[in-house]
Protein backbone atom coordinates (compact mmCIF):
# COMPACT_ATOMS: atom_id res chain seq x y z
CA UNK A 1 0.00 0.00 0.00
CA UNK A 2 2.84 2.39 0.92
CA UNK A 3 4.58 1.70 -2.35
CA UNK A 4 1.35 2.24 -4.26
CA UNK A 5 0.97 5.72 -2.73
CA UNK A 6 4.53 6.65 -3.68
CA UNK A 7 4.09 5.32 -7.21
CA UNK A 8 0.86 7.30 -7.68
CA UNK A 9 2.45 10.58 -6.51
CA UNK A 10 5.54 9.91 -8.65
CA UNK A 11 3.42 9.28 -11.75
CA UNK A 12 1.50 12.46 -10.97
CA UNK A 13 4.77 14.43 -10.88
CA UNK A 14 5.87 13.12 -14.28
CA UNK A 15 2.48 13.74 -15.92
CA UNK A 16 2.27 17.26 -14.46
CA UNK A 17 5.80 18.12 -15.59
CA UNK A 18 4.86 17.02 -19.11
CA UNK A 19 1.62 19.04 -18.98
CA UNK A 20 3.42 22.13 -17.68
CA UNK A 21 6.22 22.06 -20.20
CA UNK A 22 5.17 20.43 -23.47
CA UNK A 23 2.36 21.72 -25.66
CA UNK A 24 -0.69 23.69 -24.64
CA UNK A 25 -0.90 27.41 -24.01
CA UNK A 26 1.59 29.20 -21.81
CA UNK A 27 -1.07 30.15 -19.24
CA UNK A 28 -2.04 26.50 -18.90
CA UNK A 29 1.63 25.70 -18.47
CA UNK A 30 1.85 28.12 -15.53
CA UNK A 31 -1.26 26.69 -13.83
CA UNK A 32 0.14 23.19 -14.34
CA UNK A 33 3.45 24.30 -12.90
CA UNK A 34 1.69 25.51 -9.73
CA UNK A 35 -0.09 22.16 -9.45
CA UNK A 36 3.28 20.46 -10.00
CA UNK A 37 4.63 22.46 -7.06
CA UNK A 38 1.74 21.32 -4.84
CA UNK A 39 2.43 17.71 -5.82
CA UNK A 40 6.11 18.21 -5.01
CA UNK A 41 4.97 19.35 -1.56
CA UNK A 42 3.02 16.09 -1.23
CA UNK A 43 6.13 14.17 -2.24
CA UNK A 44 8.14 15.96 0.48
CA UNK A 45 5.41 15.10 2.97
CA UNK A 46 5.72 11.42 1.98
CA UNK A 47 9.51 11.64 2.27
CA UNK A 48 9.18 12.77 5.88
CA UNK A 49 10.21 16.41 5.42
CA UNK A 50 7.41 18.76 6.48
CA UNK A 51 9.94 21.62 6.33
CA UNK A 52 10.40 21.10 2.62
CA UNK A 53 6.66 20.57 2.09
CA UNK A 54 6.02 23.99 3.61
CA UNK A 55 8.84 25.66 1.70
CA UNK A 56 7.76 24.09 -1.58
CA UNK A 57 4.11 25.11 -1.06
CA UNK A 58 4.94 28.68 -0.01
CA UNK A 59 8.00 29.44 -2.17
CA UNK A 60 8.13 26.82 -4.91
CA UNK A 61 4.46 26.89 -5.86
CA UNK A 62 3.03 30.02 -4.20
CA UNK A 63 5.48 32.87 -4.69
CA UNK A 64 7.09 31.45 -7.86
CA UNK A 65 3.61 30.96 -9.32
CA UNK A 66 2.69 34.56 -8.47
CA UNK A 67 5.92 35.84 -10.09
CA UNK A 68 5.32 33.77 -13.24
CA UNK A 69 1.69 34.91 -13.51
CA UNK A 70 2.49 38.59 -13.07
CA UNK A 71 5.30 38.30 -15.65
CA UNK A 72 2.89 36.60 -18.07
CA UNK A 73 0.34 39.37 -17.50
CA UNK A 74 2.98 42.06 -18.02
CA UNK A 75 4.21 40.48 -21.25
CA UNK A 76 0.64 40.58 -22.54
CA UNK A 77 0.12 44.14 -21.35
CA UNK A 78 3.34 45.16 -23.12
CA UNK A 79 2.06 43.50 -26.29
CA UNK A 80 5.16 41.35 -26.65
CA UNK A 81 5.17 39.12 -29.71
CA UNK A 82 5.07 35.37 -29.39
CA UNK A 83 8.05 33.52 -30.76
CA UNK A 84 7.87 31.19 -33.73
CA UNK A 85 8.07 27.50 -32.81
CA UNK A 86 11.36 25.69 -33.17
CA UNK A 87 12.13 23.44 -36.13
CA UNK A 88 11.22 19.75 -36.14
CA UNK A 89 14.83 18.67 -36.51
CA UNK A 90 15.58 20.50 -33.28
CA UNK A 91 12.67 18.75 -31.55
CA UNK A 92 14.03 15.32 -32.60
CA UNK A 93 17.51 16.16 -31.36
CA UNK A 94 16.06 17.52 -28.12
CA UNK A 95 14.14 14.29 -27.60
CA UNK A 96 17.38 12.32 -27.75
CA UNK A 97 19.15 14.71 -25.40
CA UNK A 98 16.22 14.60 -22.98
CA UNK A 99 16.11 10.80 -22.89
CA UNK A 100 19.88 10.55 -22.46
CA UNK A 101 19.96 13.10 -19.64
CA UNK A 102 17.08 11.28 -17.99
CA UNK A 103 19.02 7.99 -18.09
CA UNK A 104 22.07 9.79 -16.71
CA UNK A 105 20.16 11.27 -13.76
CA UNK A 106 18.57 7.89 -13.05
CA UNK A 107 21.94 6.13 -13.06
CA UNK A 108 23.58 8.73 -10.82
CA UNK A 109 20.60 8.72 -8.48
CA UNK A 110 20.38 4.93 -8.22
CA UNK A 111 24.12 4.66 -7.69
CA UNK A 112 23.91 7.30 -4.94
CA UNK A 113 21.02 5.49 -3.24
CA UNK A 114 23.09 2.32 -3.19
CA UNK A 115 26.39 3.98 -2.23
CA UNK A 116 25.25 6.19 0.61
CA UNK A 117 22.62 4.02 2.22
CA UNK A 118 20.33 5.26 4.95
CA UNK A 119 21.68 7.93 7.30
CA UNK A 120 25.06 9.10 6.01
CA UNK A 121 27.92 10.09 8.29
CA UNK A 122 27.10 13.78 8.10
CA UNK A 123 23.55 13.06 9.21
CA UNK A 124 24.75 11.06 12.22
CA UNK A 125 27.24 13.78 13.18
CA UNK A 126 24.45 16.32 12.92
CA UNK A 127 22.12 14.26 15.11
CA UNK A 128 24.91 13.91 17.69
CA UNK A 129 25.81 17.62 17.75
CA UNK A 130 22.28 19.02 17.73
CA UNK A 131 21.28 18.63 21.43
CA UNK A 132 24.17 20.89 22.53
CA UNK A 133 22.72 23.80 20.55
CA UNK A 134 19.35 23.82 22.31
CA UNK A 135 17.57 23.51 18.97
CA UNK A 136 15.20 20.66 18.17
CA UNK A 137 14.91 21.09 14.42
CA UNK A 138 18.03 19.73 12.66
CA UNK A 139 17.35 21.83 9.55
CA UNK A 140 17.32 25.08 11.53
CA UNK A 141 20.49 23.84 13.24
CA UNK A 142 22.25 23.37 9.92
CA UNK A 143 20.98 26.65 8.49
CA UNK A 144 21.74 28.95 11.41
CA UNK A 145 24.62 27.26 13.25
CA UNK A 146 26.52 24.52 11.44
CA UNK A 147 26.51 25.86 7.88
CA UNK A 148 25.53 29.44 8.55
CA UNK A 149 27.94 30.96 6.02
CA UNK A 150 25.82 29.31 3.31
CA UNK A 151 22.66 30.77 4.78
CA UNK A 152 24.16 34.24 5.10
CA UNK A 153 25.27 34.16 1.46
CA UNK A 154 21.86 32.86 0.47
CA UNK A 155 20.16 35.90 2.00
CA UNK A 156 22.75 37.99 0.20
CA UNK A 157 21.86 36.27 -3.10
CA UNK A 158 18.21 37.21 -2.60
CA UNK A 159 19.26 40.82 -1.98
CA UNK A 160 21.47 40.67 -5.07
CA UNK A 161 18.50 39.42 -7.11
CA UNK A 162 16.54 42.51 -6.03
CA UNK A 163 19.42 44.88 -6.86
CA UNK A 164 20.01 43.17 -10.21
CA UNK A 165 16.28 43.37 -11.06
CA UNK A 166 16.36 47.08 -10.30
CA UNK A 167 19.38 47.44 -12.57
CA UNK A 168 17.65 45.52 -15.35
CA UNK A 169 14.34 47.37 -15.11
CA UNK A 170 15.80 50.84 -14.58
CA UNK A 171 14.72 53.53 -12.14
CA UNK A 172 14.18 56.26 -14.68
CA UNK A 173 10.59 55.49 -15.60
CA UNK A 174 7.20 54.72 -14.11
CA UNK A 175 6.68 51.37 -12.41
CA UNK A 176 5.79 48.27 -14.39
CA UNK A 177 2.10 47.72 -15.02
CA UNK A 178 0.07 45.95 -12.34
CA UNK A 179 -3.41 44.53 -12.81
CA UNK A 180 -6.26 46.82 -11.68
CA UNK A 181 -6.90 46.58 -7.95
CA UNK A 182 -9.66 44.28 -6.75
CA UNK A 183 -12.03 46.30 -4.59
CA UNK A 184 -15.14 44.10 -4.55
CA UNK A 185 -16.74 43.91 -1.06
CA UNK A 186 -15.88 40.23 -0.69
CA UNK A 187 -12.24 40.85 -1.49
CA UNK A 188 -12.11 43.52 1.22
CA UNK A 189 -13.53 41.09 3.78
CA UNK A 190 -11.13 38.36 2.72
CA UNK A 191 -8.16 40.72 2.95
CA UNK A 192 -9.26 41.84 6.40
CA UNK A 193 -9.09 38.23 7.58
CA UNK A 194 -6.19 36.90 5.52
CA UNK A 195 -3.65 39.70 5.84
CA UNK A 196 -3.40 39.56 9.66
CA UNK A 197 -3.51 35.77 9.42
CA UNK A 198 -0.39 35.71 7.22
CA UNK A 199 1.49 37.73 9.85
CA UNK A 200 0.27 35.41 12.62
CA UNK A 201 1.22 32.26 10.70
CA UNK A 202 4.61 33.74 9.76
CA UNK A 203 5.43 34.49 13.40
CA UNK A 204 4.22 31.02 14.43
CA UNK A 205 6.43 29.36 11.81
CA UNK A 206 9.38 31.43 12.96
CA UNK A 207 8.88 30.53 16.60
CA UNK A 208 8.17 26.87 15.86
CA UNK A 209 11.22 26.68 13.59
CA UNK A 210 13.68 26.23 16.45
CA UNK A 211 12.10 22.97 17.65
CA UNK A 212 9.55 21.86 15.03
CA UNK A 213 9.39 22.13 11.25
CA UNK A 214 9.26 25.74 10.11
CA UNK A 215 11.77 28.55 10.04
CA UNK A 216 12.70 31.90 8.58
CA UNK A 217 12.38 30.93 4.91
CA UNK A 218 8.87 29.55 5.19
CA UNK A 219 7.85 32.47 7.43
CA UNK A 220 9.32 35.02 5.01
CA UNK A 221 7.51 33.44 2.09
CA UNK A 222 4.21 33.56 3.98
CA UNK A 223 4.79 37.26 4.73
CA UNK A 224 5.52 37.80 1.04
CA UNK A 225 2.26 36.06 0.12
CA UNK A 226 0.46 38.49 2.44
CA UNK A 227 2.21 41.41 0.72
CA UNK A 228 1.22 40.13 -2.71
CA UNK A 229 -2.38 39.86 -1.47
CA UNK A 230 -2.36 43.49 -0.24
CA UNK A 231 -0.91 44.58 -3.56
CA UNK A 232 -3.54 42.75 -5.63
CA UNK A 233 -6.29 44.19 -3.42
CA UNK A 234 -4.98 47.72 -3.98
CA UNK A 235 -3.84 48.33 -0.40
CA UNK A 236 -0.15 48.48 -1.32
CA UNK A 237 1.22 50.18 -4.42
CA UNK A 238 4.56 50.23 -6.19
CA UNK A 239 6.53 53.38 -5.51
CA UNK A 240 9.45 54.82 -7.48
CA UNK A 241 11.57 55.29 -4.37
CA UNK A 242 12.59 52.84 -1.68
CA UNK A 243 11.76 54.36 1.71
CA UNK A 244 14.10 54.20 4.70
CA UNK A 245 12.05 51.58 6.56
CA UNK A 246 11.94 49.33 3.51
CA UNK A 247 15.68 49.73 2.96
CA UNK A 248 16.29 48.61 6.52
CA UNK A 249 13.94 45.65 6.01
CA UNK A 250 15.76 44.66 2.81
CA UNK A 251 19.21 44.50 4.40
CA UNK A 252 18.14 43.45 7.93
CA UNK A 253 18.87 39.75 7.36
CA UNK A 254 22.35 40.28 5.93
CA UNK A 255 23.30 43.00 8.43
CA UNK A 256 22.05 41.27 11.60
CA UNK A 257 23.45 37.88 10.55
CA UNK A 258 26.91 39.19 9.68
CA UNK A 259 26.78 41.71 12.56
CA UNK A 260 26.29 39.00 15.18
CA UNK A 261 29.05 36.96 13.51
CA UNK A 262 31.53 39.86 13.51
CA UNK A 263 30.77 40.82 17.13
CA UNK A 264 31.48 37.22 18.11
CA UNK A 265 34.77 37.41 16.21
CA UNK A 266 35.68 40.54 18.18
CA UNK A 267 34.90 38.66 21.40
CA UNK A 268 37.42 35.99 20.50
CA UNK A 269 35.00 33.41 19.13
CA UNK A 270 35.22 31.98 15.61
CA UNK A 271 33.65 34.04 12.81
CA UNK A 272 29.86 33.69 12.63
CA UNK A 273 29.60 31.81 15.92
CA UNK A 274 26.08 32.04 17.33
CA UNK A 275 26.07 32.90 21.06
CA UNK A 276 22.76 31.28 22.02
CA UNK A 277 19.17 30.50 21.21
CA UNK A 278 18.22 34.19 21.55
CA UNK A 279 20.66 34.99 18.74
CA UNK A 280 19.07 32.29 16.58
CA UNK A 281 15.69 33.98 17.06
CA UNK A 282 17.18 37.42 16.35
CA UNK A 283 18.87 36.26 13.15
CA UNK A 284 15.80 34.33 11.98
CA UNK A 285 13.49 37.30 12.62
CA UNK A 286 15.73 39.63 10.62
CA UNK A 287 15.96 37.05 7.83
CA UNK A 288 12.18 36.62 7.74
CA UNK A 289 11.64 40.38 7.38
CA UNK A 290 14.27 40.61 4.62
CA UNK A 291 12.95 37.63 2.68
CA UNK A 292 9.36 38.89 2.88
CA UNK A 293 10.24 42.44 1.81
CA UNK A 294 12.51 41.32 -1.03
CA UNK A 295 10.00 38.88 -2.49
CA UNK A 296 7.17 41.45 -2.41
CA UNK A 297 9.39 44.01 -4.16
CA UNK A 298 10.39 41.45 -6.78
CA UNK A 299 6.68 40.84 -7.41
CA UNK A 300 5.95 44.58 -7.59
CA UNK A 301 8.85 45.12 -10.00
CA UNK A 302 9.39 48.52 -8.39
CA UNK A 303 12.00 50.12 -6.19
CA UNK A 304 9.68 50.67 -3.24
CA UNK A 305 6.17 50.35 -1.86
CA UNK A 306 3.67 52.88 -0.60
CA UNK A 307 0.17 52.92 0.81
CA UNK A 308 -0.96 55.47 -1.76
CA UNK A 309 -1.29 54.91 -5.48
CA UNK A 310 1.10 56.52 -7.92
CA UNK A 311 -0.32 59.62 -9.73
Amino acid at each position, binding site marked *: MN*LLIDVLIA*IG*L*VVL*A*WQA*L*VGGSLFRG*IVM*FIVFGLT*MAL*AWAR*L*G*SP*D*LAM*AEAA*IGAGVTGA*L*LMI*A*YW*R*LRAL*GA*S*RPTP*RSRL*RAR*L*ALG*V*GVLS*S*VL*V*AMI*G*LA*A*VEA*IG*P*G*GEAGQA*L*AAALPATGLG*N*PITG*VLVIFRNL*DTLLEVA*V*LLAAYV*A*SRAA*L*GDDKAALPLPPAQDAPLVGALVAVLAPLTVLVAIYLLKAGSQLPGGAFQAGAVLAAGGVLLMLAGRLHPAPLCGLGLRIALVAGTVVFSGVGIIMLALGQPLLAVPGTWAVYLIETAMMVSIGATLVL*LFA*GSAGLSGKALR
Partner: protein
Amino acid sequence: MSHAEVWVVAAAAVFGIGLYSLLIAAHLLRQLIAIKVMGSAIFLVLVVAAGPIDGALDGLPKALVLTGIVIAISAIAFALALLVRLAEVTGSTSLEDDADDDR
Protein backbone atom coordinates in the same frame (compact mmCIF):
# COMPACT_ATOMS: atom_id res chain seq x y z
CA MET B 1 11.33 -1.64 -6.79
CA SER B 2 11.99 0.08 -3.48
CA HIS B 3 10.62 3.45 -2.42
CA ALA B 4 13.87 5.26 -3.16
CA GLU B 5 14.07 3.75 -6.64
CA VAL B 6 10.53 4.88 -7.46
CA TRP B 7 11.39 8.48 -6.56
CA VAL B 8 14.72 8.44 -8.39
CA VAL B 9 13.15 7.11 -11.59
CA ALA B 10 10.36 9.69 -11.41
CA ALA B 11 12.86 12.50 -10.78
CA ALA B 12 14.94 11.32 -13.74
CA ALA B 13 11.88 11.35 -16.00
CA VAL B 14 10.94 14.84 -14.80
CA PHE B 15 14.50 16.04 -15.44
CA GLY B 16 14.45 14.63 -18.97
CA ILE B 17 11.11 16.31 -19.71
CA GLY B 18 12.51 19.57 -18.37
CA LEU B 19 15.62 19.46 -20.54
CA TYR B 20 13.57 18.47 -23.61
CA SER B 21 11.24 21.40 -23.05
CA LEU B 22 14.15 23.77 -22.39
CA LEU B 23 15.57 22.86 -25.80
CA ILE B 24 12.37 23.00 -27.85
CA ALA B 25 10.40 25.80 -26.17
CA ALA B 26 10.77 29.12 -27.92
CA HIS B 27 9.12 31.28 -25.26
CA LEU B 28 11.56 32.33 -22.55
CA LEU B 29 8.90 32.08 -19.83
CA ARG B 30 8.39 28.41 -20.69
CA GLN B 31 12.14 27.85 -20.64
CA LEU B 32 12.29 29.37 -17.15
CA ILE B 33 9.58 26.97 -15.95
CA ALA B 34 11.60 24.14 -17.49
CA ILE B 35 14.70 25.16 -15.54
CA LYS B 36 12.66 25.35 -12.33
CA VAL B 37 11.20 21.88 -12.91
CA MET B 38 14.66 20.42 -13.62
CA GLY B 39 15.85 21.93 -10.34
CA SER B 40 12.97 20.29 -8.44
CA ALA B 41 13.92 16.91 -9.93
CA ILE B 42 17.49 17.28 -8.72
CA PHE B 43 16.30 18.29 -5.23
CA LEU B 44 14.24 15.12 -5.13
CA VAL B 45 17.27 12.97 -6.04
CA LEU B 46 19.40 14.74 -3.39
CA VAL B 47 16.97 14.10 -0.55
CA VAL B 48 16.07 10.55 -1.59
CA ALA B 49 19.68 9.49 -2.11
CA ALA B 50 20.82 10.77 1.28
CA GLY B 51 18.27 9.77 3.84
CA PRO B 52 16.12 7.01 5.21
CA ILE B 53 12.55 7.42 4.09
CA ASP B 54 10.83 7.06 7.47
CA GLY B 55 13.57 8.02 9.93
CA ALA B 56 13.68 11.67 8.85
CA LEU B 57 16.99 11.90 10.68
CA ASP B 58 19.38 13.33 8.15
CA GLY B 59 18.77 17.08 8.13
CA LEU B 60 21.76 18.00 6.00
CA PRO B 61 20.45 17.38 2.47
CA LYS B 62 17.11 18.85 3.48
CA ALA B 63 18.76 22.06 4.66
CA LEU B 64 20.72 22.06 1.39
CA VAL B 65 17.52 21.71 -0.62
CA LEU B 66 15.80 24.44 1.42
CA THR B 67 18.71 26.72 0.51
CA GLY B 68 18.35 25.60 -3.10
CA ILE B 69 14.64 26.47 -3.22
CA VAL B 70 15.36 30.05 -2.11
CA ILE B 71 18.30 30.42 -4.51
CA ALA B 72 16.05 29.10 -7.31
CA ILE B 73 13.39 31.73 -6.66
CA SER B 74 16.05 34.48 -6.54
CA ALA B 75 17.37 33.40 -9.93
CA ILE B 76 13.88 33.05 -11.41
CA ALA B 77 12.84 36.50 -10.14
CA PHE B 78 15.92 38.12 -11.71
CA ALA B 79 15.42 36.21 -14.96
CA LEU B 80 11.78 37.35 -15.10
CA ALA B 81 12.88 40.97 -14.62
CA LEU B 82 15.31 40.54 -17.53
CA LEU B 83 12.56 38.95 -19.63
CA VAL B 84 10.10 41.79 -18.98
CA ARG B 85 12.84 44.30 -19.85
CA LEU B 86 13.66 42.39 -23.04
CA ALA B 87 10.01 42.49 -24.05
CA GLU B 88 9.87 46.22 -23.26
CA VAL B 89 12.90 47.04 -25.38
CA THR B 90 12.60 44.63 -28.31
CA GLY B 91 8.99 43.42 -28.10
CA SER B 92 10.27 39.86 -28.33
CA THR B 93 9.90 37.01 -25.85
CA SER B 94 12.59 34.69 -27.14
CA LEU B 95 16.27 34.68 -27.89
CA GLU B 96 16.35 34.10 -31.64
CA ASP B 97 19.54 32.16 -32.09
CA ASP B 98 18.44 30.70 -35.41
CA ALA B 99 19.04 33.99 -37.21
CA ASP B 100 22.72 33.82 -36.34
CA ASP B 101 23.06 30.37 -37.85
CA ASP B 102 22.61 31.62 -41.43
CA ARG B 103 26.25 32.58 -41.81
